[in-house]
């Protein structure tokens, strides 16, 4: 789509922080567990190898988390909402405001702790794939209200 980079809005950096922490806790925790188990059973060299592998993996995972985060974007155009995402599989969705059936704002406990929420658009089509994660709570509310208002103004039914 002919949009310059400035027209795309992005999720809040808090989402990146949250994803990084999740990644650290999961992979780091797993590595630590493996290390402890190996050390207790007296496998010194294996423990060193595990530590190295764990670090490399963690590095890879962290960079992929970051690339994933950078790939998210959305743009509010005159008649439709544009959402793009994905690194390995890239997706761009175009959802006309008039086709929107309802909007969800979802925030799990950790999302709330970081002050972010996801906005999910639903149309009458099951295949529609329109989620914007990691919006600051006030931005999520603003977007929801705007989408609902535009959706009502242009309602096109099914």
């Amino acid at each position, binding site marked *: *789509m*002919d949009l310059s980079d400035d027209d795309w809005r992005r999720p809040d950096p808090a989402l990146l922080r949250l994803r990084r922490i999740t990644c650290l806790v999961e992979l780091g925790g797993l590595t630590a567990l493996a290390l402890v188990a190996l050390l207790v059973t007296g496998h010194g060299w294996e423990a060193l190898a595990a530590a190295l592998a764990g670090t490399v993996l963690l590095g890879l995972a962290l960079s992929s988390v970051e690339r994933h985060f950078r790939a998210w974007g959305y743009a509010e155009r005159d*008649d*439709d909402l544009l959402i793009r995402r994905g690194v*390995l*599989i*890239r*997706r*761009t*969705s*175009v*959802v*006309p405001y*008039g*086709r929107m059936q309802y909007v969800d704002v979802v925030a799990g406990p950790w999302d709330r702790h970081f002050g972010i929420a996801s906005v999910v658009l639903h*149309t*009458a*089509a*099951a*295949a*529609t*794939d*329109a989620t914007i994660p990691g919006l600051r709570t006030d931005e999520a509310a603003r977007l929801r209200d705007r989408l609902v208002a535009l959706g009502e103004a242009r309602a*096109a*039914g*099914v």
Partner: protein
Amino acid sequence: MEWSRLHPLTPLLRGGSYILLLAAGIGQQGVRDGDARFAGVALVVGTPLAVLAGYLSWRTTRYRVEGTELHITSGVLRKRDRRVPLPRVQSIDLVRPLAARIFGLAELRLEVVGGADSEARLSYLQEETAVRLRTSLLALVSGREEAAEPVERSLATVPTGVLLGSMALGGPLVVALAAPLVLLAAAAFAPEAVLPIFLGMFTLLTSYVGIAVKRLLTEYGFSVSEVPEGLRLRQGLLDRRTQTIPPGRVQTIRISEPLLWRWQGWVRVEVDVAGYGAQESHTSTLLPVAPRAFAEALVARVLGTYLPAPTVGVLPIVRWRAPLSRRRLRIATDGRHVVSCSGFVTTTTDIVPLTKVQSLRLTQGAWQRRLGLASVHVDSAGRRLTGAVLAHRAVGEAEDLLAVLTAQARAAR
């Protein structure tokens, strides 16, 4: 309109299956335990209770037409008051299960957009009552003033011979042809495997026959006709179903051509309206089997215009991504519809009117990116046929398609 009730035989018909189940269960129990007391108690206590429940449920169920709404109240303990906005109805079905046909009764089903439980049912009504109610509801659905007696124009019927032939041309034929060869080979090289292979083939054949019988039962006597309120589809051997799709409700059309049907030039046409559950797959058949030209003429009739033939192919490089179906990946657009062809064994053509586009998506997998390809998905509100995929187009073409189709869909809304 005054409140009306369902037919008094309703509890009997609705409860009939449960009573049969109960009887079967008790009978089994009795046989196993050699004890008839349990069965006796269950019958003596259960039957009056069931009769009472059925009576109360019938007694509390009422319906009436109010302005442009159908108002149904039901429920003994938990009351349900449902108002169906008729202009939003996607299709009206008149269903006559075998048991109901014996008593001259029918069920009226209204399909509305919504969740799994979004349909409204009136079961059972006297057949004439149901037909009359359908006529007046359809008039409200299509927003016309008076309920004219429908003038029906037959568009197509499917002869039983063709239906049977189309069922044979598929799994059964393959098994029947392959079985002797496989068995001969087995006899020559591994005689001890003959029996298991034979049994396997037999099981496979029986399951195919089961599927064929089910299809025969649902699609027997299929006919499509045109009434002022839309399209009317009739089908079924024991359970008859008459479906009426008001104009402008079709979300997606699929023309499919299984490999073995190509020899006869047969195709199958399915339509999907918003709101049909995925489990009721037979509800969307527009034509179970017909020659291609005929099917295309019918589709043109439904859409009001002939569709462009899908002629725009894909780049030769697509053979690295979809080697078998590359030649079949063809699309066409005419500013009002998207037509997309795909598939190797069964060739399917999906058609989405741009007025029905809910969203558009561009996707690009890692391998597609290496080859410079991308796919455009056109989503409609159909439940089973969820839209068309313009697969493996060149990136620039896909981006243009996304932009152009977005603009055209906006203009069409």
